[in-house]
Structure formats: C-alpha cells, structure tokens
C-alpha cells in the first residue's frame, strides 16, 4: 500500500535525522533559553514576557529554518549522490511515494524539534512570570504558524533539491525565505507602482511564499489575539503552497534520469 510505504520512508528519514544528531540543536536552544530567562529577569523590568516570547519564538523559527533548509536540500540529492536510492526505487516504491515520504519525514523531525523547543519557551516564560497568563495561549498559535512556515520551506527545499545542486538549492530556499518575509511589503509596493514595475512586483509578491502573514511573533509577544480567520486563511495558504511545491518536486523527479 502506498500509505504504508510513504510512512516507512518518512520513518526512516526521521531516524536518519535523529541518528545524525540533528536534535542536538535542542541543547543549544535550551542553553539560549535558560540564559535568556535568567538575564531577562535581571535586566528587563516589566517586559520580561515580551522579551522571552520574542526571543524564544524567533529562535524556534530560525533553528527550524536552518534544519529545514540544510536537511531539505539533501533529501533527494544525497540519496542520488550516495546511490542509496537505487535499492529503494528498484523495489515496489513509486517515485512520488519516495518524495512524499521524505517530505513527511523531515516535517515530522521539525514538528518534534518544535515541540521540545516550545516546552523550552514555556519553561522560560514560567521562570520570568512565575505563572502563565491567558494570553500565553496565543504563543501556541504563533508556534503553529511557525510549523506552517516549516512546511512551506521544507517543500521548497525539496523542490530545489529535486533538480539542483545542494548549494544552489540552499541559496534558492534561503532567498525565498528572506523575500517571502517581506511579501506584504512587496504587495504594498506593487499596489503603488505603475506599468511594468507594477506587474513585475505583483508577480513576484504573489509567487513567493507569504511568510510575513505567518509571522505573528510580535503581536503574540504584546498579548494581541490572533483572529480565527487568519488562522484559517494561513492554514489553507500554507497547505496549498506546500502541496504545489511538493507536486512540482514529484513532477520533476518522475522524469529525472538517476545517472
């Protein structure tokens, strides 16, 4: 069954990440959060929560981003270079099953990683606030949006990895993340621009992933609520963008000669 084969490939991808000590980044994260919690408690009077949430969620996002890009770009190319793919694809495994399995394996790794980092963020919050507030619940929404960002960036890294070298894939994926983080500004610029520049800016603004609408760290740090409509539209957007990128990776990989 396709589902079972995808699950086996995903599980092996997760195991590879664990054995390659990818989750060791959690140690660095724990040190960072502990240090920040202790330091913030001493130097920031009245804004401890704001600083911890801002710092914690930004760190979750950056740590995950680095993992998503640097493992994502090697998901396919490493298997081709090391020829481990040959003994997989000579079995009753379809190429799309391989790509989708690899994708879910890395997303699973990122989800587990984010879960433990989230524990760290809440631990630091507890340390500086000596208790939780109702508004802290929005941190969970921000973490959910960060996972949606990981879905998109992993799919893009996989897409680039299916036809390009690891170095170029990393450059493309990181560039898209940076441009996508300013997608709202690009859309604003496109609205103001005229003629060809308008069309060019609008094209780029809507083509790149809109990471800026998925970044609610600042709002959450200030205790502002997130609307259900934004949660729904962001979820739909991220799932569609991810599905398109993974489908692109599948389409390219289906036609690729594995020399």
């Amino acid at each position: 069954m396709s589902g079972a084969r995808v699950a086996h490939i995903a599980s092996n991808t997760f195991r590879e990440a664990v054995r390659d000590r990818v989750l060791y980044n959690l140690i660095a994260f724990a040190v960072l959060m502990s240090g920040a919690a202790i330091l913030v408690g001493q130097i920031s009077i009245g804004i401890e929560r704001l600083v911890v949430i801002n710092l914690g969620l930004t760190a979750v996002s950056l740590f995950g981003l680095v993992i998503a890009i640097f493992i994502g770009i090697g998901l396919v190319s490493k298997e081709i270079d090391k020829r481990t793919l040959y003994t997989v694809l000579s079995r009753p495994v379809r190429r799309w099953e391989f790509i989708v399995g690899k994708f879910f394996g890395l997303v699973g790794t990122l989800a587990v990683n984010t879960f433990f980092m989230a524990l760290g963020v809440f631990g630091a919050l507890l340390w500086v606030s000596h208790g939780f507030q109702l508004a802290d619940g929005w941190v969970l929404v921000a973490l959910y949006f960060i996972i949606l960002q990981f879905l998109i960036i992993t799919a893009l890294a996989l897409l680039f990895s299916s036809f390009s070298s690891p170095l170029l894939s990393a450059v493309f994926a990181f560039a898209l993340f940076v441009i996508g983080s300013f997608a709202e500004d690009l859309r604003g610029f496109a609205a103001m621009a005229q003629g060809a520049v308008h069309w060019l800016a609008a094209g780029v603004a809507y083509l790149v992933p809109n990471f800026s609408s998925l970044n609610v760290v600042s709002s959450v740090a200030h205790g502002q609520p997130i609307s259900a409509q934004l949660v729904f539209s962001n979820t739909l957007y991220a799932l569609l963008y991810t599905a398109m990128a993974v489908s692109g990776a599948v389409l390219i990989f289906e036609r690729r000669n594995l020399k």
Partner: protein
Amino acid sequence: MAAIEIIGLSKTYNVGFWRKRLKCALRSLDLTIAQGEIFGFLGPNGAGKTTTLKLLMGLVFPSSGMARILGMEINDPRMKARIGFLPEQPYFYDYLTATELLEYYAQLSGVAAGDRRRRVSKVLEQVGLPDAAKVQLRKFSKGMLQRVGIAQAILHDPEVLFFDEPMSGLDPIGRRQVRDLMEELKRQGKTIFFSTHILSDAESLCDRVAIIHLGELRGVGAVEDLTSSVEGRVEIVWLGNSVPASVRTIVTECHASGDTMRAVLPETQQDAMIDALRREHLRIVSITPVRTSLEEYFVRKLKPSEAAAGVRS
C-alpha cells in the same frame, strides 16, 4: 514466458555543460533471458552494462525501445516486488544496523510483518554476516557491504535477480561464497542476470553470456558454444622428459612440465602422434580437444586496443 525481454533498448545522454552533445550509452539492445537461467552480461568498464541494468530497474528512462520483466513493464510495481537488484559498489544508509536496513527494505518490498525478522536472519546467515547483524553499516568493510547488498537483493525471495558486478570488493573466500550462493539460487529456479568484467566468474557460472562493448551487443550464446572446439586442435600429454625423433617429425614444439611433456597439434595429426608415442613405448596421460576460452572469445569480439580496457580473467 521469458524472464527478461529486451527489445531495441537504447539510451543516449546529453553531455557537456555549455555545448551539449549526444553520447550513446546503449545501442538498440535485443536480448531474451529464459526463466531459471544464469545470464552473464560481459564487457569492459564503460561498455554499457550498468546503463542496461539501470534501464531495467527504471532508474533511467530509455531513449527508445522497451523491456519486459516477467511479462510486465519495467516500472510496474507488481513486477518490482518479484525482482531483486544489487547495484555496483552499493552504498547503504550507514546510520542503520544491518538488521535495521534489511527490515526497512523488507517493509518496502511488502514482506509481511510477521515474516520480516525470520527473513532478515536467514539472509544474513546466507551471506555470512550473522555476527554483524547489530553493527552499524558505517563500520562495515567494502566486502561486508557487498554481502549486505546481496542480502537485500534476495531478502524478499524474488524470482529474478539483477547483480551489477556481484564479486566486486570480495576476497577469494567471499567470491567463492557468492558463486555458491548464485548456484544455490539457480537450483531454486531463480533467474540471475549479472554483469561482470571478470570472465572466469562468468565462465564458471553462466548458462549463457552476452558481450557488450561501447554500448553495442557484440555476441551472445551458451558458454559451451562460445568456447567449443572451433580451433580443430588437440593437446596431448605423455609421461617423459624428452621428445623422440619420430615425434619431432609430427610436432615441432613441445613443452616439458615436471615428468610430463605436452604438445598441441592439429586434429588431423592426432592418430599419427598417438602411433608415434606408442612405438616409443611412452605412456599417454591425456588427449584433450583445445577449447577456446571465454577470454579468447571475448578478446576476439573486441578490437585488440579495446580489449586492453578492464578485462580480468
């Protein structure tokens, strides 16, 4: 039904970064391999052997032509559940132990959950690695990896096996074990298609061989037919350490080896030679027709300059 049918299979690659040019890796290959056969695919390095195997495994796509395995198209997953493949110089997920790797492959091949452990233990035993079952593959030697490669190929009890240079990286004992294993697989009725440039392996194992060079099929046939006595000569060995004058009139060149003498002469002179030796009261040890070795046949099928590349006997 043939185990493998290859019909006009060709592969051309675009090579070069700036100025693309076409490179033909395989030219219109036609082959039919019967079920239960051990078929050797011979050729020097770069002849097109690995390209053919990659085409059959669906790893690269043909430029033209087609192939069927067990009557099914090459990308049919039902067919892939019934074949096993050992790539050349295999490399595996080195963070896994041998058992974990084989269990993973068993899952992908659709081996029933209850049967996996037993199959994995059995194939590790078959390839001589029962003690390395719990060792991570990053600690394996090249020869051990080759054995794991063979284990993963036979793990799901496939009907047709494709081995790309199966003896590569093995020591003499390992090569012997793999030869024995291949013979055992043949006894079980498996079809084996294997590529090699080690001719002695092909000569001792194969029912039929094909010779490929520069992407072109140069010859195909049963090993006995290819190595039959086309020379029309015989080798006569007798006890003694000198050549009597009466024998010298028949054969000019004799070789001494210990307490025996050996001469190779045309079949037409065989009777005269036997009579001469009997007259001299010399004991004849053997009379053997001179057979063309597979190596000689191979070299004949290649031009001398081509044959120099990568042939080992």
